[in-house]
């Protein structure tokens, strides 16, 4: 190989390496921003939104839902919000969802990131089936739980007595008053946030948490005996239990419990 050729080659290689360097820098910066913009389970989305992860990748960020909302409650996230950029969200303490019966937001979504079909019951639009989040009460600051008269959240709720109801309880502190405690029923709460918006405490004592973090799940390993059919769920399950013998369970249970010294020793040993 002659010399100029090898110099050319070296130049070319060097150029390429420079490119790789810039590229690596760019990709790292880009990726770190992307990991910031990924699904965040703390965001409240408009009615019918897919699960956060699917929502974030399906929403084309057109803002048509925001335009469609007649109450202007929806905002599109900007680069400074800690929410995937360009996606719609709402903040109930500022503006709560009014649960429009014609659901203009989800109807206008071109990508079905707001899935209208999830809001259809018996061939009719039913905003009542929206599940944007779940109202959650801080019983240490809620006026009603302190024994004061409030009920603001129950009055603000579009589905009082279903989504949120008042629970009467004797106030043993005064022995002459009653607590009128608001209790949320997750089966009906839409997460609209009217309650949070209405709460008179300085920081709302009832807040909407997205279902991704507030929805409990009992799992399949508990049986509730009073629920019809729940028991039959486990009828065919195998009853064989295999135990692995360790130092502490080689004796019978009774012997083990009698052996206080052994237990203490075992505790210290471990």
């Amino acid at each position, binding site marked *: 190989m002659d010399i100029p050729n090898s110099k050319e080659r070296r130049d070319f290689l060097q150029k390429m390496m420079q*490119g790789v360097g810039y*590229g690596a820098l*760019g*990709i790292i910066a*880009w*990726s770190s*921003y*992307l*990991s910031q*913009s*990924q*699904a965040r389970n703390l965001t409240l989305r408009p009615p019918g939104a897919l699960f956060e*992860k*699917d929502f*974030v*990748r*399906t929403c*084309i*960020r*057109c*803002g*048509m839902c*925001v*335009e469609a909302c007649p109450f202007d409650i929806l*905002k*599109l*996230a*900007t*680069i*400074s*919000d800690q929410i*995937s*950029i*360009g996606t719609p969200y709402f903040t109930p303490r500022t503006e709560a969802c009014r649960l429009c019966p014609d659901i203009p937001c989800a109807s*206008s979504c*071109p*990508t*079905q990131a707001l899935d209208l079909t999830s809001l259809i019951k018996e061939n009719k639009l039913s905003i009542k089936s929206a599940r944007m989040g779940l109202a959650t009460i801080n019983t240490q600051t809620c006026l009603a739980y302190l024994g004061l008269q409030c009920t603001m959240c129950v009055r603000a709720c579009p589905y009082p007595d279903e989504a949120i109801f008042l629970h009467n309880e004797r106030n043993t502190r005064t022995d002459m008053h009653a607590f009128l405690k608001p209790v949320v029923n997750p089966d009906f709460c839409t997460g609209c946030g009217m309650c949070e918006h209405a709460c008179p405490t300085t920081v709302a004592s009832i807040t909407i948490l997205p279902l991704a973090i507030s929805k409990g799940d009992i799992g399949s390993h508990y049986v509730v005996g009073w629920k019809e059919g729940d028991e039959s769920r486990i009828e065919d399950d195998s009853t064989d239990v295999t135990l692995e013998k360790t130092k502490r369970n080689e004796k019978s249970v009774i012997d083990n419990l009698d052996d206080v010294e052994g237990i203490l020793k075992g505790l210290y040993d471990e």
Partner: protein
Amino acid sequence: MNNFLYKHRFLLSRRIVQIALLTIYFGGNMYGWTLLQGNLSSALIFGFIPLSDPFATLQMFFAGAAITTDILLGVLVVLFVYSVIGGRFFCSWVCPVNIITETAAWLRRKLNLTDKKKRVTFSRNIRYWVIVISLGLSFFFSLAAFEMISPIGIAFRGVVFGFGMGWLFLVAIFLFDLFSQSYGWCGHICPLGGFNTLIGRYSIVKVVHDSDKCVHALECFKVCPEVEILAKVGRESVPIGGACIKCGRCIEVCPSDAFEVSIVSMAGMASMAKG
């Protein structure tokens, strides 16, 4: 004065179109006008003709999103328009970032920052790599990766729905274009520009150069944001390639009217492809 208007007829019309579009979208959000709703990612004209950005949709596809028929229809409408008038017409007639980068380029010329020796030059092919990386990152992060950082989206959503801190990003692009590389963003990095170049390659409407009329004034070289595509100017009569953003600056500045917008026949296209 009239001469000034005539000399800048394309530039002024483009600015009017760009600002009118922003206004119409803004009105769509603010006052509920139904002429155009949405934004540059996806929109509706008169409430029923869908438009969707093909590149954004491709990223969504890579991110694993289910693409609806509404979006696909929108993509088809846009692809049709691009195949007629060329994908990059978007850059100079619609994209709001174009206003920023052209202003930076103009200021750069005014401030004489164009000294060849001190210049850093970036390859124009970076944008095609950025396309590839966008799709790769979209796949890895389950997110339309470029849409997350797109200054186009930031600018447009900013005007229509509010900026947040997004304007900082636009300032950065302005400074990059002003001091580091002329048309640095639009002509080198922007993957949407690259994508639109690719899909508008064989568009029917093109800017065409007539070398018989050319007096070698080289004015077009000073203003064209994609100078490399002028390689054959003065030597051959050719339609200008896919990277041409249809800004019409060459038509305006040429003293001998050697450029014009015209419909390119298949034969013309073949001659372009050959060279």
